[in-house]
């Protein structure tokens, strides 16, 4: 009898505690929604990144927020939410409060919006600033293909045999890869990779033949002579790689690269957005950032674009990619 009573009182204690804690959590979640710009930041700033640790977007976010943290006396917490070319990170971030404490580090917004996988338009999320405008290259394992011409003609003769890896599905990587395939007529087999790390080890191990990737993340492989860039998606040859031809040289009109930027809820207080934009610019101009950018070949093009200007560019890009996505489908 007493044992039964004990069990019952025990269960009641548990139930009460559960109710207490859940309601406390619910309250705090629905509590102060409008951030205070004056005292910003007075708590940790969450930055969702839609790509795996170690990749270009992740490194970008970590580097820039690290410098911003010093100057703003703030803490940034980087959360990697891989998948869907950044869509999952965006969706997770958009469920958080619009108080200015949740940011998104993105690099594929225009494409995912055009493809319809991202459902948050520019009325719901807006850029703080674009910081990087990167340059793609097709890279192979050293010794497999000597030149881009060899690769393209081999792929034309053996349709579907060359495995071309790039990160993600319906992101800018895939769009660029497919545009390349279409433009050159070199029929390659597109394999979406989960993240940069997996892609690099797959190329090293010979499980895929070509990767579409910037030279920054693979710099160490290139220096060790493991990887070889065959063509850059750029107008002019790069100073660091004078022997590697460009797409324009070959008559292929493909120069779009990955742009990396920070975004925020569209209805976050404007003062906070302005402050973050200013801090991002300051961070970008520091020696530390410049050195990182130079080391990782991120300064091949001018990256900076402020919030308003970049919003316009994103609008145009979305329209452009909508057409391309239509074509590819």
């Amino acid at each position, binding site marked *: 009898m007493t044992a039964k009573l004990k069990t019952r009182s025990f269960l009641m204690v548990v139930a009460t505690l559960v109710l207490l*804690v859940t309601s406390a959590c619910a309250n705090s979640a629905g509590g102060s929604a409008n951030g205070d710009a004056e005292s910003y930041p007075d708590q940790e700033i969450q930055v969702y990144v839609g790509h795996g640790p170690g990749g270009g977007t992740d490194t970008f976010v970590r580097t820039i927020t690290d410098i911003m943290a010093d100057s703003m006396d703030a803490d940034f917490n980087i959360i990697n939410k891989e998948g869907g070319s950044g869509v999952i990170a965006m*969706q997770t971030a958009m469920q*958080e409060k619009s108080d200015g404490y949740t940011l998104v580090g993105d690099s594929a917004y225009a494409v995912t919006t055009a493809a319809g996988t991202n459902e948050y338009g520019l009325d719901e999320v807006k850029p703080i600033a674009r910081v990087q405008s990167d340059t793609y290259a097709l890279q192979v394992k050293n010794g497999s293909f000597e030149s881009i011409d060899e690769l393209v003609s081999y792929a034309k003769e053996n349709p*579907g045999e060359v495995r071309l890896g790039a990160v993600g599905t*319906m992101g800018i990587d895939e769009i660029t890869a497919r545009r390349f395939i279409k433009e050159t007529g070199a029929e390659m087999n597109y*394999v979406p990779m989960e993240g940069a790390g*997996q892609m690099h*080890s797959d190329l*090293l191990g010979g499980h895929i033949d070509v990767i579409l990737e910037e030279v920054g993340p693979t710099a160490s492989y290139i220096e060790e002579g493991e990887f070889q860039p065959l063509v850059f998606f750029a107008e002019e040859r790069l100073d660091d790689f004078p022997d590697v031809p460009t797409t324009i040289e070959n008559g292929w009109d493909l120069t779009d690269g990955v742009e990396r930027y920070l975004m925020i809820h569209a209805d976050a207080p404007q003062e906070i957005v302005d402050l973050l934009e200013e801090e991002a610019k300051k961070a970008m101009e520091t020696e530390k950032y410049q050195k990182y950018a130079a080391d990782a070949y991120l300064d091949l093009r001018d990256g900076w674009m402020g919030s308003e200007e970049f919003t316009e560019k994103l609008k145009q890009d979305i329209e452009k990619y909508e057409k391309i996505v239509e074509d590819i489908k």
Partner: protein
Amino acid sequence: MIEGILLGLDNLLQPIHLLILLVAMMIGLLGGALPGISGTMLVIILLPVSYGLDTISAFILLTTIYASSVFSGLISAILFRTPGTPEAVATVLDGYPMAQKGKPGQALGIGILSSATGGIIGTLFLIFLTPLLAAFALKFSSPEYFALAVLGLTVVVSLSGGDLIKGFIGVGLGLFVATFGMDPLTGVERFTFGRLELIGGIDLIPVLIGLFAISEVLRKSKEDHTIQQKMDKIKTKIFDREIFKRIRVTIGRSSLLGVAIGILPGVGATTAAMVSYSEATRWSKNPKEFGTGVPEGIAAPESANNAGAMGAMVPLLSLGIPGSATTAVILGAFVLHGLQPGPMLMSDSPDLVYTIFLSLLFVNVLIILFSKPFIMAFSKIMKVPYSVLGPAIVIFCIIGTYAVRNSVFDIWIMLLFGVLGFYLDKMKFPLAAVILGVVLGPIAEEEFRRGLQMANGDLSIFFTRPISATLLGLALLALILPLLNRFRKKTGAAS
């Protein structure tokens, strides 16, 4: 390797890491000793905490808890006939009778010495074997990862403890949960019911905490709580020359056996302890004395389960296959920290891997020093009634779940899985099988589809690549053998 060990030592000797190690060891000892809190549960409860730490600290915390909880399960097994952790099940067989004969101190001493020795031997194997296995790294691509995940899933056979059908249903349930959310390859939404919270899928932590911790509290709440026996002053003697002479061979053999069993993907320390107990009986000159409180009966399972627990880290770190429920949770922890345990881990984060190695080694040595004062303190803690302890665990679970992504939705998910886990456990469904599905499902799915894409849709890619084919073959064997055995037994019994 020397370089890696120095790197790990350098990491470990930082004051903050040492502090974390000590705290974690205390938590592990305490949790492992308390019946109703298993190592798995502890690791799960602290998983959200580890989220806020840097990677190295986080894994020192989790692996230390793992190692020390496997160790301290023996205390309540010997004193109360209630194994503190599943790994200590076999320790009850001789430990409790010996304690009843008025020699609880001796029983504890044998257990501690055997555990620490087993743990150290296991860790040494871990240190030397992991790099060897990881050397295959670059040979692995999507087909191999898929095959590994499948092999990992077949662990269900040993996890389901006899009732294979329930095991398979459990894994199926886990795999089903893993399909929720956005398709990683095409971005199509699955089973989201229009809920934004479900687009990112069901988070691993709420499922883990619900299934293991909450369900366990619910189960315990229905039990009789009157085991709080009097703990008289116990004099623990760890090293006794004569006893050591008697059990050293058993310790050596059981440790090796434990490592070997632990390394097998999917067979954890609990199996290691049971098998080595029966082996000790087989090798003994007086097998009939087993079960009455012989030193060998404590030494065998205790050295084997600690060695096995360390051995189970080998497939986890080198291949990404969990060997037990706790290592499955640690696998999840790696994923949550943005790391993929597997062949690349060793080359990508050698500092982390070696720090884990060294902290495990360190903990196993420290246990000898700390176990005596701990047992003394523990006798006081045992007086806290479960009606206080249980609710405290529930609170930790709720706070922990909420803290991971500040999501109230996750708390509901956790409570839902808690109730589900309670009933599944009641119906004897192996909960670890469900977790297996949840953890390995996404890997299996994604790598399978990527592998197919690589081969232009040709399924043969999984069978023509040697490693992938071997792994899938092993997986098939792992499934067929137990079935065959059962069939043989049945026909044998019939004729």
